[in-house]
């Protein structure tokens, strides 16, 4: 990590610690002196916002576990016990359940920011891949957590999702009985998902450390997508970005609190307030909103195994983006064609999300299939070809020059 050499301990206890465990100089280098491009916009604050989300989920989750009972006969009523009898239990549970949605909203913004500004390109491929590992772990954690409530959608969602593993040839049945701990979703399933739901967030925290470690080697990308040329292009992380990120986190908290206090169930399925019942299947089984695009891809393929494979590829292809994108120019600002395809892709993802919430029939199925085809077209054809045929706009000389030009233009106007 660059920039930590200037840390000079002055007090005796710090000097004592520093000689034995140089953790303070490490922190100083990573979060205080760390040189950061001076032109980062608000889309770059979502990293800090995501750290906040992870912290909130872990803290509220640890408290919820103190009152939750992972047993098929008691899970649902223990959630109601939290909502009714535990002091501020309603608050902690609503923060945790809406927190999952906020976490995904922030992670999607963070990912689309990376796609727009080419943050995954050389030398930052591994940062992107570690981020994708975090994303996959997040979906697992969210799915496990959703099952714990043991409502109708928990149970039937768990049945649908676990059955996907049964489609895998040869080992499918083995995987299914391993997931279920029996012959269907039942108490052993609830117990193992409970255990995993507690484990995965700490795995995420571990990969977050790697993600940030890897980020601190080349430093941040920036909206211009050009490399930092020298100290005139950067500011120290503290106070410049600590204050900006804190402001952004508090703005995000306002949005978050709107849901927690005024529409806590708007993002959830009403069916999950009905206790799980294996004899009654809900009319529409739908996952939470943040998984809908992938659910739409799964359902647009008429064959179960091929559907599972398509969904797997839809997620896996994101790992390959650093190599599928052949353009050397990072920021979409200087890529006139890619910029338009970026927005088309975003719209495509939103359409897939909309279709995922609809029954797979009639027009919805047709639109879903077109959107699915476009999803793969974007990654496997458009991204590689664009880099070869597109003429990028001229890149600015340096970050500082671009910033100065901009503020000069601002003053003149």
């Amino acid at each position: 990590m660059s920039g930590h050499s200037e840390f000079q301990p002055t007090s005796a206890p710090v000097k004592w610690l520093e000689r034995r465990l140089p953790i303070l100089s490490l922190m100083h280098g990573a979060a205080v002196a760390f040189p950061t491009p001076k032109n980062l916009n608000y889309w770059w604050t979502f990293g800090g916002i995501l750290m906040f989300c992870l912290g909130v989920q872990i803290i509220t989750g640890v408290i919820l576990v103190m009152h939750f009972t992972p047993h098929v006969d008691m899970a649902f009523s223990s959630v109601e016990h939290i909502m009714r009898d535990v002091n501020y239990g309603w608050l902690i549970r609503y923060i945790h359940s809406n927190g999952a949605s906020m976490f995904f909203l922030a992670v999607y913004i963070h990912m689309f920011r990376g796609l727009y500004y080419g943050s995954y390109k050389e030398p930052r491929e591994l940062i992107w891949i570690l981020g994708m590992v975090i994303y996959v772990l997040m979906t697992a954690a969210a799915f496990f957590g959703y099952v714990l409530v043991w409502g109708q959608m928990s149970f039937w969602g768990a049945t649908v999702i676990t059955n996907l593993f049964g489609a895998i040839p040869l080992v499918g049945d083995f995987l299914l009985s391993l997931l279920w701990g029996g012959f269907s979703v039942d108490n052993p399933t609830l117990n193992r998902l409970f255990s995993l739901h507690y484990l995965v967030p700490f795995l995420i925290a571990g990969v977050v450390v790697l993600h940030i470690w890897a980020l601190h080697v080349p430093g941040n990308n920036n909206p211009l997508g050009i490399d930092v040329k020298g100290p005139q292009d950067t500011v120290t992380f503290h106070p410049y970005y600590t204050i900006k990120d804190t402001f952004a986190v508090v703005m995000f908290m306002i949005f978050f609190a709107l849901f927690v206090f005024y529409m806590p169930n708007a993002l959830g399925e009403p069916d999950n307030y009905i206790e799980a019942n294996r004899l009654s299947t809900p009319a529409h089984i739908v996952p939470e909103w943040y998984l809908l695009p992938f659910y739409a891809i799964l359902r647009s393929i008429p064959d179960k195994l091929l559907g599972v494979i398509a969904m797997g590829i839809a997620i896996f292809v994101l790992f390959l983006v650093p190599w599928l994108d052949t353009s050397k120019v990072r920021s979409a600002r200087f890529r006139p064609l890619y910029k338009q395809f970026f927005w088309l892709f975003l719209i495509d993802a939103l359409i897939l999300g909309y279709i995922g919430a609809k029954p797979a029939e009639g027009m919805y199925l047709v639109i879903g299939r077109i959107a699915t085809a476009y999803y793969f077209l974007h990654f496997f054809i458009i991204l590689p070809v664009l880099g070869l045929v597109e003429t990028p706009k001229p890149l600015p000389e340096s970050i500082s020059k671009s910033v100065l030009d901009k503020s000069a233009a601002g003053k003149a106007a």
Partner: protein
Amino acid sequence: MKNKSQIILRSIVLAAGLALLPAAAQASEGVALKQVDWSFNGPFGTFDRPQLKRGFQVYKEVCAACHSIKFVSYRNLSEAGGPQFTEAEVKTIAAAGNVTDGPNADGEMFERPAEPKDRIVKPFPNDNAARAANNGALPPDLSLMAKARKNGPDYLYSVLTGYAEPPEGVVMADGMNFNHYFPGQQIAMPQPLSDDQVTYEDGTPATLDQMAQDVTAFLMWTAEPKLEDRHKLGLKVMMFLVLFAGLLFATYKRVWKDQH
């Protein structure tokens, strides 16, 4: 400056759009429900205390014959944010129910009148008994019903007031009743409420419409007993966060001043 605020605005709109997309997608399905201007709607909404008491009366005298509210205890009826019966009233209400307790010192189970600490006594000891008494249909527990349906309160009110003679050509299954708002329009429950079904202690005329609204409000409270706490705390949190964000923004501008 203008650029930045535009970006913030755009990101908020985008975020809200993303978040509300599935909700909007679902709102377009099904028969349009009757909409009621509930007292608990909106960020400052509260329950109407006399209405909750009337709603409890309707539940107790009509619904409770078949439907349980198993997540609610008698003591909840006197707690803040609910119907707020007095503790003496709750004791009287509870004593009307019988619960099995024990074993006592002789190892015997025994019956005793319910107390405020007990859950509200269910009409049937178990689901099989409920089905046996109801032509095979299970009357669902109502504790969470106002949250277990889309637009729950409007849905409950619509179903309670949505009974009618089946239209020409609609063939009804045996023992089923026609209801405009119930999914499939055939409901096992006969019309539960009709004018003057109960006599309100506060003198409010017990019309079908009034009773349907009252019992729906009561069921919204059983589903979301902390709604008033949530709205009150929400206002304080929002005021704090907005003020804090303002101070942070000013600090942020000050810190960055020498960089522009």
